[in-house]
């Protein structure tokens, strides 16, 4: 067993001492050429010989029980192999990091579109047709689809500090506003897919999954077998955004079918099935109350929300997560109600909490600034707390004020005039700002590094969902071992490698990156010992080791290979300090006063998110997050049928992620240099989700500034903008 390194105290900045210039560099992703030439093999592409095809049969009722399948009706279809019903089939994917099987409903139906069986055939077409034709009999029971009308709801105890009611009542200026956000989908490009193949007692699953260490346990638990009998491969993932955190119905169904039939089975979800059965982001109803003194100092903050999920699902969109530590006040209160409804279950979708919670909080801050007659940037600057207002924790390192000031300066915020004052034909132009915050985390992770002369191999079950894991892990190993990245072979996405955090919650680089760093550090120590020098005296560069007065080529020094494994876990610093990325988003929009159309003209995100490991992949992630922000502000909405609860906008033509035309050409990201010594030994913070957190609010605040009218139902679709304009009488 490798000893676990616990993050109990501030760590020295060893990566800065290496001076190789590999870490931080804007290097392209090493797997990029494979992806653009079609040679990267995704989950559904590696068809083993004799592979057959499964299609999930899905419920056409919203609540009740399957009483029978009329297998006879389709039995003569040529090429049909089997119709599989099994008590182990999943109702929906596991929640992130569950590590155990999700609900296995055994014939009970909880939502319209739920998988209830698997049809297996020699061809995909036959399987799809058979799944379509199979008559299913049900017994229906009553259900509710509307979260706001649901009787079955759980009120969580409010989280409080100080006395909100009293401080709110004593505030001279207050805001009490309600906001709604529609449900959203992760909408990853690659649909969820799995190929299962048994050999003897073990099953090999090729899947599209974000967190293999957990997924292996989830699949084993779902099947009722020992995790040692499961191996999962997921080397390339065509986007996850949280939707591939947990093992899904396709994987378990493929494994069950393959075992029963004795042949490899592939199950690829159709786009409609992805929308229907993969965890969505809950719609939210939010109430934000802010109380301030006349000079704009916050005295009271409250953020209450209503979200929904299926019965039995523990996840509830953590709407007020960032509201609890972004600004300070004397009295704070946060409450949540979870409604149980028959809708596609909800789970983590990119930046769970902040992605929708910050739309409301930062809109309310803007409304408060307006009421106070104070500059929105200034209001935010005045309310940055000394310590975490709920826990009293210190902030590890925080450059929120720098981000706001730098952004205001670079964006030309001083040119921002009165609301509704900038007119261009039928268009009104406005600017908006919002703070960004996203808590950073360290999740237990292991990695192995092998040094073979002047090249190295990194092995971990970490995944790369298109974000750059291959790139940054190679950079960290290269920096530590004095090797160019071309000499580092990074192998990911295989449960036979040491278990890492996986990709989720923006903690992948912090966690897996630290494990690689620590393993490489052990190799350095061994090399130093071989040279007879202290580790601190060892210099590695271009395949040459220098220490004491000795200089040797690594190819000489390393006779066969030096292998070290390391594992890291969070420790005392996660209790004493809050590590979070901070930033500021700025947006300029044009709003057509007749049609309610909104066009984002330019955007700027200024972010301080710890050490930047790769300037290029970080920037891409930040930009991608900001584009998500545009989607949440303007375009993305899952529509649910009011009777059945099922998702009506269930393909990429009707679920509107931003198109190129929605994204301005003038879109920039500025990183402020930062090191988080309390977070982990590589001084990083999470990057993936900070870009989205607050970005949409900047767009929404710009709409309010452009028009003088405030939209509070998001996304701000044209009709909602028109309604706000008509109500405001502008």
């Amino acid at each position: 067993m490798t000893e676990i390194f616990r993050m109990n105290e501030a760590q020295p900045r060893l990566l800065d001492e290496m001076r190789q210039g590999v870490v931080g560099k804007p290097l392209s992703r090493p797997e990029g050429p494979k992806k653009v030439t079609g040679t990267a093999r995704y989950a559904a592409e590696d068809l083993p010989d004799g592979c057959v095809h499964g299609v999930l049969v899905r419920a056409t009722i919203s609540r009740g029980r399957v009483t029978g399948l009329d297998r006879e009706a389709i039995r003569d279809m040529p090429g049909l192999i089997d119709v599989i019903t099994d008590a182990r089939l999943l109702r929906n994917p596991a929640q992130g990091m569950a590590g155990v099987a999700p609900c296995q409903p055994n014939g009970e139906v909880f939502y319209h579109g739920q998988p209830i069986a698997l049809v297996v055939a020699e061809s995909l077409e036959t399987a799809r047709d058979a799944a379509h034709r199979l008559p299913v009999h049900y017994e229906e029971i009553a259900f509710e689809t509307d979260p706001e009308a649901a009787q079955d709801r759980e009120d969580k105890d409010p989280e409080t500090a100080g006395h909100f009611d009293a401080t709110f009542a004593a505030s001279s200026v207050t805001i009490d506003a309600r906001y709604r956000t529609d449900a959203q989908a992760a909408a990853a490009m690659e649909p969820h897919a799995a190929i299962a193949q048994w050999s003897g007692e073990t099953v090999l699953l090729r899947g599209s999954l974000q967190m293999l260490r957990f997924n292996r346990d989830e699949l084993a638990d779902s099947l009722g077998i020992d995790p040692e009998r499961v191996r999962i491969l997921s080397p390339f993932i065509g986007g996850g955004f949280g939707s591939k955190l947990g093992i899904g119905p396709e994987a378990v169904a493929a494994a069950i079918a393959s075992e029963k039939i004795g042949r490899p089975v592939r199950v690829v979800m159709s786009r409609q099935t992805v929308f229907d059965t993969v965890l969505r982001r809950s719609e939210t109803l939010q109430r934000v109350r802010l109380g301030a003194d006349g000079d704009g100092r916050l005295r009271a903050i409250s953020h209450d929300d209503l979200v929904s999920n299926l019965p039995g699902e523990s996840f509830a969109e953590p709407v007020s997560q960032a509201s609890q530590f972004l600004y300070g006040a004397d009295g704070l209160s946060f409450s949540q109600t979870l409604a149980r409804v028959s809708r596609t279950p909800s789970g983590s979708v990119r930046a769970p909490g902040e992605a929708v919670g910050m739309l409301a909080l930062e809109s309310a801050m803007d409304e408060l600034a307006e009421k106070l007659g104070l500059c929105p940037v200034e209001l935010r600057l005045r309310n940055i707390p000394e310590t975490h207002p709920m826990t009293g924790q210190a902030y590890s390192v925080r450059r929120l004020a720098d981000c706001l000031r730098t952004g205001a300066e670079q964006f030309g915020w001083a040119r921002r005039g009165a609301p509704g004052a900038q007119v261009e034909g039928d268009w009104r132009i406005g600017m908006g700002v919002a703070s960004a915050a996203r808590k950073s985390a360290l999740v237990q992770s292991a990695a192995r590094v092998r040094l073979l002369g002047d090249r190295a191999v990194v092995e971990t079950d970490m995944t790369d969902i298109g974000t750059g894991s291959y790139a940054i892990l190679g950079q960290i190993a290269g920096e530590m071992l004095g090797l160019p990245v071309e000499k580092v072979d990074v192998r990911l996405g295989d449960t036979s490698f040491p278990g890492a955090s996986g990709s989720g919650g923006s903690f992948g680089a912090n966690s897996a990156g630290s494990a690689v760093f620590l393993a490489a550090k052990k190799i350095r120590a061994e090399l130093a010992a071989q040279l007879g020098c202290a580790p601190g005296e060892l210099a590695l560069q271009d395949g040459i080791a220098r220490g004491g007065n000795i200089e040797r080529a690594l190819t000489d020094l390393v006779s066969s290979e030096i292998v070290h494994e390391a594992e890291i876990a969070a420790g005392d610093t996660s209790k004493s300090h809050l590590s979070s990325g901070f930033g500021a988003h700025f947006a300029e929009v044009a709003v057509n006063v007749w049609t309610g159309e909104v066009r984002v003209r330019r955007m700027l995100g200024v972010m301080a998110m710890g050490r930047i490991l790769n300037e290029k992949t970080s920037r891409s992630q930040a930009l991608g997050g900001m584009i998500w922000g545009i989607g949440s502000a303007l375009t993305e909405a899952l529509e649910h049928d009011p009777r059945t609860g099922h998702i009506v906008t269930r393909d990429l033509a009707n679920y509107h992620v931003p198109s190129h035309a929605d994204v301005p050409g003038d879109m920039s990201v500025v990183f402020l240099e930062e090191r988080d010594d309390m977070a982990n030994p590589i001084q990083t913070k999470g990057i993936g989700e900070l870009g989205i957190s607050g970005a949409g609010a900047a767009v929404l605040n710009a709409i309010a500034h452009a028009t003088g009218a405030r939209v509070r139902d998001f996304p701000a679709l044209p009709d909602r903008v028109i309604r706000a304009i008509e109500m405001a009488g502008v």
Partner: protein
Amino acid sequence: MRPFDYERATSLHDASERMSDAAAIIAGGTNLLDLMKIQVMTPSRLVDISRLDGLDRIDDHDGGLRIGALVTNTALATDPRVRAGWPVLSRAILAGASAQIRNKATTGGNLLQRTRCPYFYDTAMACNKRAPGTGCSAQGGSGRMLALLGTSEDCLAAHPSDMAVALAVLGASVEITAPSGELRTLPVTQLYTLPGNRPDIETDLKQGEIITAVVLPAPRPGTAQTYRKVRDRASYAFALVSVAAVVLMDGDTIAEASLAFGGIAPRPWTDGSVNALLAGAEASDESFARAAAQLVPDSAPHPETEFKRPLLRRTLIATLREATGLAGRVDTARSL
């Protein structure tokens, strides 16, 4: 997907002969193949006309153009004659779908594409258009993409084409070839039938008849032409409301105006009384509002399309403001 026979027609006559209730013609296939995969359409035979000679040409014709049914949307939108003489058609086509789809989609196929009503696409739900007599799930369902005008109790679906709206405003005709080889022409606006109690019947086409061309009348010099499409994102989305306008000005007065509307009806919608109100009127918000009041119905057939009433009114006004120059020339507007 159901098994089907694929047959390549050798001539128009051959194609007509191969047609039956269970057969479908395929050209670009951009809509049909999607519908077949999800088994909304389950033809047992596909008759491919995409390789037939002569249907992919745009020819000068009586001062206007004759556009072959197999001319792709891309070729039509980028044709220099179209861009110069009928810019509203080019704009409307480019406002639809994506470049990849437009490269494949044909003129005839665009006219005959099916509605995007979500219930038509969902075989778990009742739909009179897909399965006559089963009922209309859109009634009482989710209604953002449904029609405002021309609907019936049995069907609330809207026609999704942008191109057809521009063809309607231009007074274009459809050339139809019968199995006998006989030709007939219909104004585009008369190609489509309203749903009534047979929403499964969408056009005036008889079995075996094939659209072989679209005929554009001579261009109207001096007109301002525009296509304004309001949707839930800036590109690659179907219209909530669209307005095609061809306007001839005489000083500050509208000499002639022709309007057509998309996203709001089972066919490209035109209303002669609206055009008549505008002819001779001063170009002003008041005139435009009067035209809008003439067009917009007093109520919506579905509560969720209620928003299309103010949106249609406002988009009509915005389009006329643009076409008459009242809105001023602004980069943002032109880049839409």
